[in-house]
């Protein structure tokens, strides 16, 4: 990256609207993330209708700040009530809660927030360095490579998001099926529109996402035990006290956490959630005192929380460089970028390098802001947790309705949100993950366009998909991923057959 690009990007980021967007997004994310039962993805989903009316950089800056803060703040109910705010924080919730039971709730929250911020900064640095370099390589990609990359992202997402691969794949296919509604990407003729004018433009991912993440979550909340245990009284200890000592004591844990988080997060379709689980397990394995794990030991928390936000930042590498999102949040962001006419991909880095650089810079701002806002969050944690769910749920519903309406200024969006919410509730209750649906919906047109183009270039010869070296490597990886569940099933079947005989 040259100095001109850097300075232009810095100039974009230092605009008042971007700074306000980061601050507003972070405060909003802090509140939503800290309330048990409200997730970071829900926060992002509800935010998108507002970003619809913003310039591209402030819009993405708001999403980045909201997500970083909401995911980090999700550790607060984890530490105080043993209710993880995100799937990632579930990996170390017992450790954090054990620290709280020892009277060290401030320390547990301080570790989460401080090391998350540091991890996020390292992930952002990786994004800044690797992103443009990868984009230069990706400029030579043809439809074959983009097809395989999209396939890799979708397959991985379907495989890692559910214990049962069949359910993950069904979720993915639902998303892809919804994406086929509207004008066909190649011929321009209406497909599955049933004569509806509203469906001609396709199903907007925003009401679907609001329905599946916010409305479905509310329905699920009604069927679960809504009474939460009272949060423990916090002591007089200052937030972040003793953090420097932990940095000195566990430097390798921190480094391992951020390296793992950055690597795992950058894989298309994996996202940041898996990393925290691996990091916590790895920390225990390499620790000199593994027997202390589960009793309120800081080491595992340092590694897992560092990994968490590093993965969150690096998940944007495939999203920005290839246009292939790693998880639901980056899928939302990619959708927003498409809406703004900024098609993510290597061309964005080549044609308008200051724009992706400015977006990456907002990661630094958002993660730096985590530390002062985290301080306030720790001080006011008890008050945030005391806000009754009875008050929050109707507020979310009103914003869900207004947000869905605002996309096309018609009630059709509200209908889509309601249908998606009911479907999302039923699907998730029956073990079908939601993230692959959103990924399928956002990536469906990209996948189809590159698939049809590749089929036409290769004249229907599937071997043509493996003729270019990078396409061949990606294709083999995708095929192996597809075969993996089949091979696993075969081994299990043979094992059962051997036992029976």
């Amino acid at each position, binding site marked *: 990256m040259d100095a001109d690009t850097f300075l232009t990007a810095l100039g974009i980021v230092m605009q008042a609207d971007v700074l306000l967007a980061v601050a507003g997004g972070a405060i909003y994310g802090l509140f939503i993330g800290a309330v048990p039962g409200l997730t970071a993805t829900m926060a992002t989903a509800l935010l998108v209708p*507002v970003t619809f009316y913003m310039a591209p950089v402030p819009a993405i800056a708001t999403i980045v700040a909201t997500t970083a803060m909401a995911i980090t703040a999700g550790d607060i109910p984890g530490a105080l009530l043993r209710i993880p705010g995100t799937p990632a924080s579930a990996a170390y919730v017992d450790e954090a809660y054990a620290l709280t039971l020892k009277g060290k709730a401030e320390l547990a929250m301080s570790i989460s927030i401080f090391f998350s911020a540091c991890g996020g900064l390292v992930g952002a640095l990786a994004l800044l360095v690797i992103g443009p370099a990868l984009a230069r390589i990706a400029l030579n990609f043809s439809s074959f490579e983009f097809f395989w990359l999209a396939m890799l992202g979708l397959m991985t997402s379907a495989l890692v998001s559910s214990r049962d691969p069949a359910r993950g794949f069904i979720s993915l296919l639902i998303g892809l099926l919804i994406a086929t509604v509207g004008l066909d990407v190649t011929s321009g003729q209406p497909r599955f529109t049933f004569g509806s004018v509203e469906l001609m433009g396709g199903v907007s991912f925003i009401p679907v996402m609001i329905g599946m993440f916010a409305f479905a979550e509310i329905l699920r909340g009604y069927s679960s035990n809504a009474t939460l245990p009272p949060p423990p009284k916090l002591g007089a200890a200052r937030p972040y006290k003793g953090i420097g000592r932990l940095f000195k004591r566990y430097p390798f844990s921190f480094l391992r956490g951020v390296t793992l988080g950055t690597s795992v997060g950058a894989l298309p379709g994996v996202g940041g959630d898996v990393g925290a689980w691996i990091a916590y397990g790895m920390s225990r394995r390499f620790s000199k005192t593994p027997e202390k794990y589960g009793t309120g030991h800081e080491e595992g928390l340092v590694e897992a929380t560092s990994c968490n936000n590093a993965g969150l930042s690096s998940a944007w590498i495939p999203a920005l460089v290839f246009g292939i999102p790693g998880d639901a949040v980056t899928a939302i962001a990619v959708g927003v970028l498409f809406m703004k006419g900024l098609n993510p991909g290597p061309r964005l880095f080549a044609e308008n390098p200051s724009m992706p650089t400015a977006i990456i810079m907002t990661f630094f701002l958002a993660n730096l802001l985590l530390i002062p806002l985290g301080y306030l969050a720790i001080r006011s944690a008890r008050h945030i947790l005391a806000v009754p769910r009875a008050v929050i749920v109707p507020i979310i519903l009103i914003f869900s309705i207004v947000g869905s309406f605002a996309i096309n200024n018609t009630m059709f969006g509200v209908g889509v949100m309601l249908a998606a919410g009911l479907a999302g509730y039923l699907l998730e209750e029956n073990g079908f993950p939601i993230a692959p649906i959103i990924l399928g919906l956002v990536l469906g047109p990209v996948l189809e366009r590159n698939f*049809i183009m590749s089929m036409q270039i290769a004249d229907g010869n599937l071997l043509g998909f493996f003729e270019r070296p990078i396409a061949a490597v990606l294709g083999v990886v995708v095929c192996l991923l597809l075969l993996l569940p089949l091979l696993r099933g075969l081994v299990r079947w043979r094992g059962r057959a051997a036992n029976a005989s």
Partner: protein
Amino acid sequence: MRIDDRLVGLFFSLLGLATILAARRLSSVPGTTYGPDLMPILIGLGMMGFGLKILWAGVAAAGTAPWIDLSAWNGRTRGVLSAVWTILGVAASIPLLDTLGLPLYGLLFCLPLMILARARLIVAVPAVLGTVLVAQFVFGEMLHVPLPAGLIPLPW
């Protein structure tokens, strides 16, 4: 609400089949080999395959569990009422929001929901009023979304 895997698998197998049949009716563009039907047919095939796998697993594991298990909602009268009110309330917004306007609709929809969730009136009324007015102002005034004001005159 858990649904038996046999029903779930059957549903997705049939959805896959319906997708294939509907896609076959799409006309292809003259002169092109791969038209708008290709992707939906592949999706339909995948859905049928994975649906059949779930159906097969459901048949293999078939026990005495009910076809549709609603036990998560047992004894949760307020939860059931809240869920029904939420679904009907959002559905009602489609024909009613234009006439009632967001402030009145929001009040009529949210207040009973808050009371069902045992919120105190002294908290619920200002919370609902504040929310609908903020939503109306932010979206209607700042973002220029044409939200219907309806029957109640707005303070701006």
